[in-house]
């Protein structure tokens, strides 16, 4: 089922997640993320796909009482990023994230993109300028904002803000980028822009995306995982999932009989 030349960039092994109130949100999830491929997580709302995605950069650490179990291995150094000894900040510096709703900081466009570098202690103006330009180009936003870099980021349109957030995540050369329903708050044109952008990005890095939109998953992803009630029902190449899934539940969901 998996092409031979694929390299595993990250992998969850028997991963379980519990919220502070005791909810067992994810049950024994095993999913590989292949290097320079887009993996999509689909499933009805509440199935745990966002919860799973947010585990990859330890977002759940922000709220007390949440508990991880099992492993998420990050290669090439074979680090279990859930390990208590591994610093969440280190994980987040390697794996960046784009959120459901654009969440730019109340700063200039320039400072938004430079933020990740500043957090890393980078203050060299020329270095920052180069990186900001590169990231904005990478997020195909450069042409629209190059003359207004000192403007407040809030003044951008929703689609531009989301691309800004992608540039922000891109500027630090992450190994993996997580997208949590990145187009759900955007109009169709902005959505197309972002989808094209992701296809461009996968030339350089590994992508995991949560989407509520099955067409989107079918359009852009190489692999798809179908989740339901906190369980991984099926994982396979996207073409197979959408044309010839092996599980009945997956088929029902894909064909719209359920959900």
């Amino acid at each position, binding site marked *: 089922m998996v092409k031979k030349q694929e*390299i595993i*960039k990250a992998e969850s092994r028997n991963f379980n997640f519990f919220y502070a109130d005791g909810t067992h949100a994810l049950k024994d999830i095993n999913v590989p993320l292949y*290097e320079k491929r887009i993996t999509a997580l689909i499933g009805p709302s509440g199935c745990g796909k966002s919860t799973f995605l947010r585990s990859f950069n330890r977002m759940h650490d922000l709220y007390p009482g949440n508990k991880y179990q099992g492993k998420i291995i990050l290669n090439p*150094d*074979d680090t279990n990023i859930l390990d208590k000894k591994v610093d969440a*900040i*280190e994980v987040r510096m390697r794996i960046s994230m784009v959120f459901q709703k654009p969440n730019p900081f109340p700063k200039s466009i320039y400072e938004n993109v430079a933020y990740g570098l500043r957090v*890393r202690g980078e203050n060299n103006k020329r270095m920052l300028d180069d990186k900001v330009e590169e990231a904005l180009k990478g997020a195909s936003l450069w042409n629209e904002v190059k003359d207004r870099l000192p403007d407040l980021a809030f003044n951008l349109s929703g689609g531009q803000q989301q691309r800004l957030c992608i540039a922000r995540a891109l500027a630090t050369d992450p*190994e993996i980028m997580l997208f949590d329903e990145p187009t759900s708050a955007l109009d169709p044109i902005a959505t197309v822009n972002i989808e094209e952008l992701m296809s461009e990005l996968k030339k350089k890095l590994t992508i995991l995306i949560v989407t509520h939109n099955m067409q989107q998953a079918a359009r852009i992803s190489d692999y798809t995982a179908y989740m339901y009630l906190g369980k991984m029902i099926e994982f396979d190449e996207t073409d197979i999932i959408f044309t010839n899934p092996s599980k009945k539940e997956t088929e029902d969901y894909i064909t719209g009989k359920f959900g």
Partner: protein
Amino acid sequence: MKKNNLPENKNLDLIRALIIKHKKNDHIFAGIGFFVIASLAVALLVLFLDLLINGYPKINLEFFSNFPSRKPEMAGILSAWMGSALVLFVTFFVAVPIGVAAGIYLEEYAKKGWFADLIEINVSNLAGVPSIIYGLLALGLFVYEFGMGQSILTAGLTLSLLMLPIVIVSTREAIRGIPVHIREAAFAVGATKWQVTWHHVIQYAMGGVLTGIIIGMARAIGETAPVITIGALTFIAFLPPSPVTEVAPFINFDWLDAGFTVLPIQMFNWISRPEHAFHINAAATGAVIIMLTLLMNGVAIKLRYNIRKKIKW
């Protein structure tokens, strides 16, 4: 074991060193923050304890039943606490109905528009006016223009103006928490607007309103500046006429016109004396005031906490 032919990430060690460096700031700030809060707490605790320890020997029955005196060991706060009680009595009966009514008006009756806006702007500004300005208002208006003199009535009205914004704001907040469907249910069975307000809105908002009233009263107990400004006396060795009489109609209102002093003014007076013995009296009075206000505020905060926990619409 080298895996997957991926190049080893050389930056990793750099990143780790960086994180350690940055996390140091986290720890330093957490330390500073904790230190600041702890030292503020300790400083205030020391101050309050000092007040209590200094005042403690004076706090006995005689202290409450004696008039102030030139001899510090004889002096008590009888006229002061009686004055405070009577002034607060007036304050309560003026500020609570008006404040609650104004709050109800703004939330339930007023139509959106310039008039409601004007009232709102005024309420929020009045909350920020220094208390001594209320004293000047009362001095010019109540004492002289209305000829009410430097009386308990004047002081009560003055403090009620101070308390008004607090009552209004807390009433509004309490009402705002009541969902529309409760009102609709009452309207649906044919209740009038006032019936809905009286039977439902006020009843359900009562806890929040009460919180505001207690906090407002606690503030009124401690207010000094406006009461000094209207000319409250600092040395009073008599009591106002009793509100209850032995002959019919058993109630009289002469006490409203009487001169008076209140607890914080008594304390102020004793602080200003050079003799150390009077400072002990001041500490004892301060301890009484602090206990009263902390107790009232504590009750109010607890009450609000309970309401927040209990009511889930």
